[in-house]
Structures are given as C-alpha cells and as structure tokens.
C-alpha cells in the first residue's frame, strides 16, 4: 500500500498556517485534557480514601442545652439508652466531633515527655465503650474501652484520661518500627508531659478535616461529655438509615426540654460536603474537557470541509488519474494524522510543561507518565473520527469533475 506521506506533507507545507493552526489547537487541547484528567484523578483518589466508618448507614446530630439547670450527664446516659433501644439502630455514641465534618479537636502526641520534643498531630474523639461498634471499625490489637475506663469530662476538666485507642496510622507515625502488638501498653505524652497508655489499635478512622495531612491520625479517649453541647453518632442497620433518622429525631425532641436537637445529617451528606470542592472541580474539568474536545473536533471538521471544497477540482483529477474512493479518504486521513501527530508531540511537551508549572505553583500531584501517551492517542483518534466525514465527502466527488472547465 502506498501511503503518499511525502507528497501529502509537501503539499501541506504549501499551506503552513492552516496546518499549524490545527496543530496548535490539538496541542493545547491535549495539554488541557491530559492535565485536567490528571487533576481529576488526583481528586478522585482523595475522595476514594477509606473513611473507616460505615458511611452509608451512619448519621449524626448535635444536642445543645440552653436551660441553665439542664442536667447534661443524665441526659446523655438516658438519650443513649433510648437511641440504642430503637429498632434499626446498630449502635450509638456521644462524641465531641464527627469525621469529615470540618470541625473538631486536635492534639499532639509525643513518645517522650518534654517541651522541645516534636509530636504527631492527631484528631481527638471523646467516646464511650460503644465507639468501635458505632464506627464499625476493627480492633487490630489490644482491647476496647471498658466501663471502668470511662470518666466525665466537663467544661472544667483540664487533664486527660489514662488510656487511649489510636488508629494504626497514628501509631505508625509515633512508633514507625513497632508492630501493633508491640505498641499496646506503650506510654505516649499529651500536652508535652501528661502520660497516656495506648490500650488498643483500630484499623482506620478519619479526622474531621478532609484536607488535613494527618487525615488518618485519630485517637479515641474514654470521655463522656457533660458540655453544654455534644453530638451523637449513630449507625443504623443496613438499609434502614432514613427511617432510623426520623425515629431518633422524634425520640430525642420529645424526651427533654431545655435543649435543642439540631443539625441531623447522614454521613453520606457529611462526606459529600467535605468533598464539595473536589467533586465540583471534577465536574467542571470534565465539562471543559468535553466541550474542548467538541470544539476541536468541530474545528477539524470545519477546516477539512473547507479544504475539500477548495480542492474539489484536484480531487476530481486524482480520481480521473486512477485514485479509488478509498485512496481519497486515505489522503485526508493521513493528512490529518500528520497534523495531529505533530500536534500531539507538541502537546506532549506542553502537557509536561504546564504540569510542571501547576505542580510548582499549586503543589498538585505530578502527572502520571502514561497520561501523556493516552492523551496523544485519544487526540489522534478524535482527529481521525472528525476528519472521516469530510474525507468521505471528498471521496464522493465524481471523477468527471476533472473535465469540467472551471
């Protein structure tokens, strides 16, 4: 088969500007698409991180007292008892903060006491002995809290409980060389000097801040909360969450006066809100990429159609001289392939260049190398698809056109 690459290329060089415009258009399109795709993948990876909890079946709400004489301690005990007895509730706890909700409490832990020791930052969830079951997390070493570990934390409490349960990620950052079993029983220090013993390790739990570097650093402390306000975190049994949410709201609202039950929200919603920026970015980039592809494809169609029109006589002549329809189609396909080929090569360079700028200026993840060839191939395919219509139109130009005087 004779591909005519030489003459096609030489003919194209006679109309450099037109070819160059499409070439550049393809290059920039590829740059945007490859980088956009890279950003989308980066955000998707963020969103796909395992929260550790049963997102689909859990929800939370806050409980704020306003009556001066409100007895929060009794309320918490009775509320939890009432919630746990409701049908469809798997388990429930009171807690100071909710994973991915954006607000919470963080502390530093260090392996030696002292003011000048660097520590590991961690989120703190103050919970009771039902926490592991409510979060649906796995204990991979040590033991759960027992009733005897629990204490009441009030506005005036300034010290910390004697024991804690940590996520594996947190213990790995504190004791990089120890196995989970070996970490159990170790003493760490909070507030620089105050010792706490690690009694249990759980596989996974996320902090309240999805943008935080230490998202997987969480410590659980055995504190019942007698603050003016606290939260309840509830896990429903599979598939009945929405019913349970209604039931919990009714039960709590009617139980006591002098407090407000508010902000009830499913963990699905909490997680969604936490990643609004990421998912918005994904949607915007996707839209831009689609529209851009359409524009570039339309541009190729438009210019190819124009060039077919301009070359009608020439095409007729080629047909007269013995070109089969396929040869004409092939001519335009190859012409486009040459231009797109140059475009994606320039595009590959621009893609990497733009990515370096983005990485530098916005500390994005560097683009994975294989997005470059994928981007190149995609644009070549898009170009070929776009040019096929005009090429077919060209092939239907009758050979007799050659004898028609202009």
């Amino acid at each position, binding site marked *: 088969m004779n591909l005519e690459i030489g003459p096609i290329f030489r003919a194209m060089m006679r109309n450099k*500007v*037109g070819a160059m*415009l*499409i070439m*550049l*258009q393809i290059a*920039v*399109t590829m*740059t*945007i698409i490859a*980088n*956009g795709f890279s*950003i989308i993948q980066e955000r998707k990876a963020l969103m796909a991180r395992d929260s550790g909890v049963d997102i689909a079946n859990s929800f939370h709400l806050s409980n*704020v*007292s*306003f009556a*001066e004489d409100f007895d929060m301690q009794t309320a918490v005990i009775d509320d939890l008892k009432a919630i746990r007895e409701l049908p469809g509730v798997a388990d429930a706890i009171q807690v100071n903060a909710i994973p991915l909700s954006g607000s919470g409490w963080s502390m530093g832990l260090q392996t030696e006491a002292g*003011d*000048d020791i*660097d520590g590991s930052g961690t989120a703190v969830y103050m919970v009771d002995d039902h926490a592991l079951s409510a979060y649906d997390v796995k204990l991979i070493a040590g033991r759960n809290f027992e009733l005897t570990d629990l204490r009441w934390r009030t*506005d*005036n*409490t*300034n010290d910390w409980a004697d024991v804690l349960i940590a996520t594996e990620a947190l213990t790995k950052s504190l004791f990089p060389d120890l196995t989970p079993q070996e970490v159990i029983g170790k003493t760490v220090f909070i*507030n*620089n000097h*105050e010792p706490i013993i690690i009694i249990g390790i759980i596989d996974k739990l996320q902090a309240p801040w999805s943008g935080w570097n230490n998202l997987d650093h969480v410590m659980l402390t055995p504190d019942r909360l007698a603050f*003016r306000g606290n939260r309840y975190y509830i896990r429903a049994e599979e598939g009945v969450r929405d019913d349970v949410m209604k039931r919990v709201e009714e039960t709590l609202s009617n139980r006591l006066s002098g407090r*407000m039950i*508010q902000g009830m929200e499913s963990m699905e919603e909490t997680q969604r*809100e936490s990643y*609004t*920026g990421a*998912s*918005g*970015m994904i*949607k*915007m*980039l996707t*839209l*831009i990429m689609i*529209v*851009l592809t359409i*524009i*570039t494809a*339309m*541009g190729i169609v*438009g*210019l190819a159609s*124009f*060039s077919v*029109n*301009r070359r009608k006589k020439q095409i007729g002549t080629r047909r007269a001289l013995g070109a089969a329809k396929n040869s004409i189609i092939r001519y335009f396909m190859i012409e486009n392939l040459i231009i797109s080929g140059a475009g994606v090569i320039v595009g590959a360079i621009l893609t990497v260049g*733009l990515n370096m700028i*983005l990485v530098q*200026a*916005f*500390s*994005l993840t560097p683009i994975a190398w294989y997005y470059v060839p994928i981007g190149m191939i995609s644009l070549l395919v898009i170009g070929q698809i776009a040019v096929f219509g005009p090429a077919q139109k060209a092939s239907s130009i009758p050979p007799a056109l050659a004898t028609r005087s*202009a």
Partner: protein
Amino acid sequence: MFTYYLRLAFKSIKRTPILSALMISAIALGIGACMTTISVNYMMSADPIPHKSDQLYYVRVDSWDPYNAFDDPNIPPNQLTWTDATNLTLAGKAFRQSAMARSGGVLEPDNPDIKPFQAGIRLAYNDFFDMFDVPFLYGNPWTDEADINPELVVVLTEQLNERLFGGENSVGRTIKMRSNDLTVIGITKTWEPVPRFYDITTGPFNDVSDMFMPYRLKQELELPNWGNNNCWKPSEGSGFMSRLLSECINNQMWVELPNEQARQDYMDFLDSYVNEQKALGRFPRPLNNKLTDVMDWMKHENVVPDDAEIMLWLSFLFLLVCLLNTIGLLMAKFATKSSEIGLRRAVGASKQALFIQHLVEAGLIGFAGGILGLGLSLLGLEGVESLFGDFISKVAHMDATLVAMAFGLAVLSSVAAGLYPTWKACNIAPASQLKSQ
C-alpha cells in the same frame, strides 16, 4: 461607510451560516469559560473595603512555642491570645482598634412561635463599627463605657432582627440568651463584605455573624470559643478563667492607622509591648510582630483557593483553543471570498478599506460571540454555584466591570483572531482573481 461595512458583514455571515455559527459558538464558549473563572477569581480577590483597605491592619505578635514556629518559615500565629488582644486594644495606641472573637449561644425568643435557636456572635469593641463603616438601620453601636464595664447589650443584623422581631425597630427590646436578658441597642443594615476580610480564619466567604456584643462579655457571660482555637501549651489550672487567660489563640485584632507615621509608631508600640511581656515571662520567641493591611492579609491567607486559579489558567488555555479555531475558520471563510476581494480591488477599493471591511466582519462575529459568551458565563456562574455550594455563592456573579470586560475580551480576541486572516485575504493582487483558472 461603517454601516455599509456592517451590512456587508451581516450578509457575509449569513452566507455561510454553519461556518459562522461555528465561529460564534467557539468564541462564545471561550469567553463563557474565561469570564466564569475570571468572575470568580475577581470577586474572590476583590477589595472588600476599598476606601480604606490600606489603612486597616491585622495585628500579629509571636506568642508561640519557643521550640516551634507557629508556621514555617518563622511565621507568627494568625490569631491572638485573649490577654494580648485585650491589652493591645485597651492601650488605645491606634486611631481605631478592636479585638474580636467569634462565639455563639442559644437565643430563646419571647415569641413562643419561634423555637430557641443558636446564633453566631461577633464579640468586638465599638470601634469595629466605625473602623469597618458598618451601616446602621436603627440605633447605634454601644458606648465606650460599655466596652470597659460591659453592659448586656447587643447589635443585631438586619436578618436576625427580621427573624426575632419581624424587622421592626427593636431598639430597647430584649432577647434572652442563657437566662440573661440582652438589650438591643442597634440594628445593622445588611453588610456583607466579600471576602469577609476581618475573620479569614473561619472562612473568607462565610456570612457575617448574626449579632455583635461587647468583647468583654465573653468573660462576663463565660461565652464559648467558636472559630479556631490553637494552643501550644495547656492552660494552667482549670475553669473558664484559666482557659481564657491561657496561651491559646482564638482572637483577632484590627487597627486603623491613617498614615505611614502612625504605622511606624504602632509597630514601635507592639515591640515595646512584647518586650514588656517578655519581662513577665511570656513571649519566649524573638520579636516577630506584624502589621498587615487588608489586601496583603488576603494574599497571606490564600483567600483565592488554588483550584480557582488553576481553573482560571485552564480557561485561558481554553479560550486560546477557541481562538485558534476561529482563526482557522475565518481563514477558510475569507479564502472563499478571494474572488470578491479581487473584484473589489479591481474596481478601486483600497487595501485598507478591504482590511477594515473584513475586520468589521471579524469584530461582528466577536460581538455576537461576546453576547452569547456573556450568557454562557452567567450560566457558568450558576453552574459553579450549584457545584461548589454556599461557599462560592457570594462570589459567583458579575458586576458592570465584569460585563464590560466580557465584551472587551470578546471583541478584542476576535479582532486579534481576525487580523491575520484579514491581512492574508486582503493581500491579493487586484487582477489575480478575475481570471478563472
């Protein structure tokens, strides 16, 4: 002559409807994408208080951990302790000054139809209102006296007044919060600086708090810390007062310094204040005080998120693709007119006249694309708002400047896109096209 060119341009555009539609929509999409992201970025980086943003300074002093800077490299804390915020404000060394903090409480309206609800409070000194030019609908800020010996007074926002009192002049009425009766002494007119510069730490595009109360009431009423509370060492002792007087930072402070001299003087004052405190055993770190004006503070706190900037640059590239597209199509279009151009040249049209004629055509396409693009960017902003939610709703619109910018960008870019094809098309010898080939 211009109307003649316009008429010709219209005719020419109508003659090749598909090609023209392609060009107009390419420009429209490019402008739409660009203006959407430009608008968001422009609004996010807008000056929230233009007439005095260079006279308002955010105050930072380095009260942090001797062993670790608050942030690298050696950046002082972004908030103040209660102690320092109070001391610095009461010293009164600036033209105006106010410590401030966020708090909240449950309001129990007298009206039994309104259930108790939680309201956000901005605690501040009365200079807050003058310094930031907060407009009042009814009543006035509290007195200087109320700042020192706090009275149970409150200034409501228009929205909260609407909710509590149906929008009537409620000055003198009271609302119950934690069994305290707060007396309303003023209602602010809607005031939503964007970005909400005075407290970036709790989100630059969040709403202004529901109500304002004298700063000292935090201590008096033992109001909780809202916003961010950061500590580098635990409070000594237990109870509300020890927490309030700890080294934890939960307060902001702004000063108004009308000129450079005032700024210098205030800097000196800050240094001497910190040195005094050092003598008392506080401030273990070296002197590192900062006065940052509004716009610099916005920049320092990265008010414009990276994603917005990334989208801005990507949308410029998008526009570039659209323009390359338009140049190509315009060249195609003008090439079909080469015989007409040759004829016009032959009958005496100057090159310049033809150039202008075709530039008018390119400009007209740009104008049409601009109008369509403006519509698209309004749509785009709606889209952005629905994608990113409340956080962005304050910045997802266009003002007159932006609309003008959209048109300018459209016409400018399409004329720029039209220049080369026009030049090329008009560079035809008068006779060459008369002979049929």
